[in-house]
């Protein structure tokens, strides 16, 4: 946990900030202008969000495969699996229910 990583430089923080700014500006601009179809825009919003979260994790939380202790990554992976099962399962059940009740 306490190992210092390569991302602890001003240059690295600024890189992360600029990447995050671009990844925020893209979805906001698309929604603002309405340049693309709603479905396409939603897909781009989702992709930009996932990429921006990874940018924050790497540049600001300093997570990486080299210096982050294994138990921290394991805890993160475990949380990700739990979130996938619980969120994915909840949405599956609720939308299936909705479909059967209303369909």
């Amino acid at each position, binding site marked *: *946990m*306490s*190992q*210092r*990583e*390569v991302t*602890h*430089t*001003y*240059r690295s*923080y*600024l890189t*992360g*900030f600029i990447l*995050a*700014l671009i990844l*925020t500006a893209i*979805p*906001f601009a698309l*929604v*603002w202008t309405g340049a693309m179809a*709603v479905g396409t*825009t*939603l897909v781009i*919003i*989702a992709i*930009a*969000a996932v990429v*921006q*979260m990874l940018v*924050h*994790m790497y540049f*600001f*939380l*300093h997570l990486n495969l080299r210096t982050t*202790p294994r*138990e*921290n990554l394991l*805890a*993160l992976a*475990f*949380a990700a699996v*739990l*979130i996938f099962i*619980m*969120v994915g399962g*909840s*949405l599956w059940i*609720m*939308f299936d229910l909705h479909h059967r009740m209303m369909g």
Partner: protein
Amino acid sequence: MTIADTPTTDHGTLELGGGKAFEEREFGFWLYLMTDAIIFALMFATYVVMSGNIAAGPDAKSLFDLQHTAGETFLLLLSSITFGFATLSSLENQNNRVIFWLVVTACLGAGFVAMEVSEFVGMINAGAGPGTSGFLSAFFTLVGTHGLHVTAGIVGILVMVGQIAVKGLTNPVRSRLYRLGLFWHFLDIVWIGIFSVVYLPGILS
């Protein structure tokens, strides 16, 4: 300004955080953040399920303001990098600069909370309070919980400023600053989820 230029402290710490003695606390805090991530994830799931249930009340499109959300997003993103500058200053043992950047971060965070509160008050006055519909219950729960976290983070930053001013950058203080930084950056990640799941699709619909 890079790591290579960083002087070592009296304790010989070349490490982030408080060193070996604090690794367990830092891992414990990481576990707490993971549980917090699960709480937020389930509130997101609840919101997505409830977002269509407007009960003849106002819908997302009529309530959300893209410019307002963009402003909040920018303040929080900016506060993430100013906290990063505080962390870097702590690695360079520049106590006053750490305090300066922490105060800037707290101000940006306070600006964010103020914008959120004004948004909530405006919605409630317009008859779109949390009791109006399932959609608004889920909205206020999710966004309000994030806002409470940010408020707690601001209190943490102010306590941190006091500790650095009084005690200096001792190893326990470094460990607390490190954990507070994890918390602050984590909240910015949750906000990415909020504007991508709540605000942008809401305005788009």
